[in-house]
């Protein structure tokens, strides 16, 4: 039944593009139902679905799919962020054709991301990383504005470099192992661990996800792409696309293929720490709301990478949880940005002030999201950061633990500055006519804020009950 994660979006894509009257109108609801189904499949975890081996689709793809607890976290995150992005697109993309194109590309991106969560073959992963990346280039430029086209072009160039490096690595690995399947490659790399070819292949492949995740020093494309894209696409990029095609691919490869060698650990720890500090420092100086969120994403992805680099079970559990948490609170913050862009026509923080009085829901939910980003208890971000810091400390990496802690203070600083400039204080003259977002966007913001609060308050309970979380501490 696992192939349904790929086949259902494909059938949905075909259905909404049929030359039948009314097919286009169904696009939103069909896609929304797909995301809801995906969320329910993970949360309710019906054994009928996950346990079935022999069925109509079992042998559709001749490749073995596999799921573990990390894949479940990824499916859940894709479901939530995809649904949020779809709803924002419905309310913020002005033209009906743009909305339809957006839905189509969202479905192709969904196929790519779901496949990445299931595959255990290096070359197939490369193909579906390309599927996801190609969808994102067009999604960024979906409204054909000049800045968006520029952002998409930058992303295209940098992403192509990443793809070329990964493809070269796959070729070298094929030379060494004779196959691209995870099991065979892993065994071959272990057998020839001292080989220069193997080291080169691993280094080349690692560069790909580093670029795709926007880790420092490969982050140049990320702020432009996030800030130039329509808000619905920014949610998707920050929440899930860069994470699945970059961070998750990195996690999967390090855990299942390359292994935690001392060199890989050092590289991950250093890149993670550098991203945490650089992203937080760069976010402080921004006046564009979405650009600030983009730099904040670089910093938060750094936490996931440092957790992965630490390599202990606790650290990886923390990294996986922060993957989910970051997707949720960053989606909420980008939804706030979408509301402000729609109601004020700008995301320049210098042109805002005292907006809580006019937009109480947006103000309150943004406060919850930023407190969670900074790791303030008892919100969801606190738990994941706590797990990462404790894991670093208990592994003897006190310096990195200190960096992770201190960077949280920096996070608090730039978000407090944002709150003061945008939401707190007296209403800025000229903004008296500004109104709260429509019902659809308010419900989305409140729902995401409730997820942050719920995961934070019920974290110990969820570890025992929810399928994706209960065995995460392996």
């Amino acid at each position, binding site marked *: 039944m696992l192939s349904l994660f*790929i086949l259902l979006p494909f059938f949905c894509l075909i259905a909404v593009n049929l030359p039948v009257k009314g097919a286009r109108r169904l696009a939103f609801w069909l896609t929304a139902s797909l995301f809801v189904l995906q969320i329910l499949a993970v949360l309710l975890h019906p054994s009928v679905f996950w346990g079935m081996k022999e069925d109509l689709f079992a042998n559709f793809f001749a*490749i073995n799919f596999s799921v573990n607890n990390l894949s479940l976290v990824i499916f859940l995150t894709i479901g939530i962020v995809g649904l949020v992005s779809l709803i924002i697109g419905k309310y913020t993309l002005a033209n009906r054709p743009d909305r339809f*194109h957006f839905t189509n590309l969202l479905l*192709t991106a969904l196929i790519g991301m779901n496949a990445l969560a299931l595959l255990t073959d290096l070359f*197939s992963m490369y193909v579906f990383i390309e599927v996801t990346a190609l969808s994102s280039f067009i999604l960024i430029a979906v409204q054909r504005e000049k800045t968006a086209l520029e952002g998409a072009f930058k992303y295209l160039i940098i992403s192509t470099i990443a793809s070329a490096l990964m493809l070269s690595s796959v070729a070298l690995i094929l030379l060494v192992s*004779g196959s691209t399947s995870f099991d065979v490659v892993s065994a071959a790399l272990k057998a020839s661990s001292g080989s220069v070819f193997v080291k080169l292949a691993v280094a080349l492949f690692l560069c790909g996800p580093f670029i795709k995740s926007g880790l420092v020093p490969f982050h140049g494309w990320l702020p432009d792409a996030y800030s130039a894209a329509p808000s619905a696409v920014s949610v998707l990029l920050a929440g899930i696309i860069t994470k699945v095609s970059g961070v998750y691919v990195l996690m999967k490869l390090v855990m299942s293929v390359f292994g935690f060698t001392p060199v890989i650990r050092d590289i991950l720890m250093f890149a993670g720490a550098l991203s945490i500090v650089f992203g937080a420092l760069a976010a402080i100086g921004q006046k564009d709301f979405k650009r600030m969120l983009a730099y904040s994403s670089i910093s938060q992805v750094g936490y996931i990478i440092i957790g992965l680099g630490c390599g202990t079970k606790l650290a990886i559990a923390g990294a996986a949880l922060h993957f989910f948490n970051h997707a949720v609170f960053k989606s909420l913050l980008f939804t706030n940005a979408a509301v402000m862009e729609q109601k004020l026509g700008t995301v320049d923080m210098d042109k805002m002030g005292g907006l809580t009085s006019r937009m109480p829901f947006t103000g309150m939910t943004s406060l919850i999201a930023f407190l969670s980003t900074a790791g303030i208890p008892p919100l969801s971000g606190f738990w994941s950061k706590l797990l990462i810091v404790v894991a670093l400390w208990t592994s003897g990496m006190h310096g990195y633990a200190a960096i992770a802690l201190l960077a949280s203070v920096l996070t608090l600083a730039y978000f407090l500055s944002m709150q003061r400039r945008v939401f707190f204080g007296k209403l800025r003259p000229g903004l008296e006519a500004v109104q709260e977002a429509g019902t659809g966007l308010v419900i989305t913001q409140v729902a995401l804020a409730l997820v942050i609060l719920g995961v934070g308050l019920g974290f110990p309970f969820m570890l025992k009950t929810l399928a994706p979380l209960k065995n995460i501490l392996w």
Partner: protein
Amino acid sequence: MMIDLILLICLVLAAFWAVVAARMLKAVVGLALTSVIVSILMFRMNSPLAAVFELSVCAGLIPVIFITTISFTKRLSWEAYLERKKEIFSRFWYLPVILVITVVLLSRYKIAADFILPQAPAVTDVRHVLWNLRQSDLFGQIIILLIGAFGVVTLFKVKQPKDKPK
């Protein structure tokens, strides 16, 4: 071995020409030439099917699409062409330097396969590999083609305003 070496040097030169050519048409010729040389190398390495694909798609179809697109553009004036040449030189002057340094460095170190060679694949029939073993990749290719079609519609299709009734 000597022929392969000559072909590889020609390959690098053709690729270099594709990057630094001031006129787009010349760049496309450089690209097509690169693909032709890659095809010859593939033939020599006993991979005729890959060579045929490379020759027909990368050296044939893609340059045709590029040339069709270029035919819709305006030719650069002589002054603009000289200006562009200068700009390209200032931007890419270091490429030949890097190339020479790489060749010198590689010639100093003898690169040998320092890994355990894998067993030869059990299945060598390309049709079997493509249709029976790599179905997920073929499916991915179909999705990429669909994305390309959506991309063209999304980015290039401009809705014409309807004629007002007289």
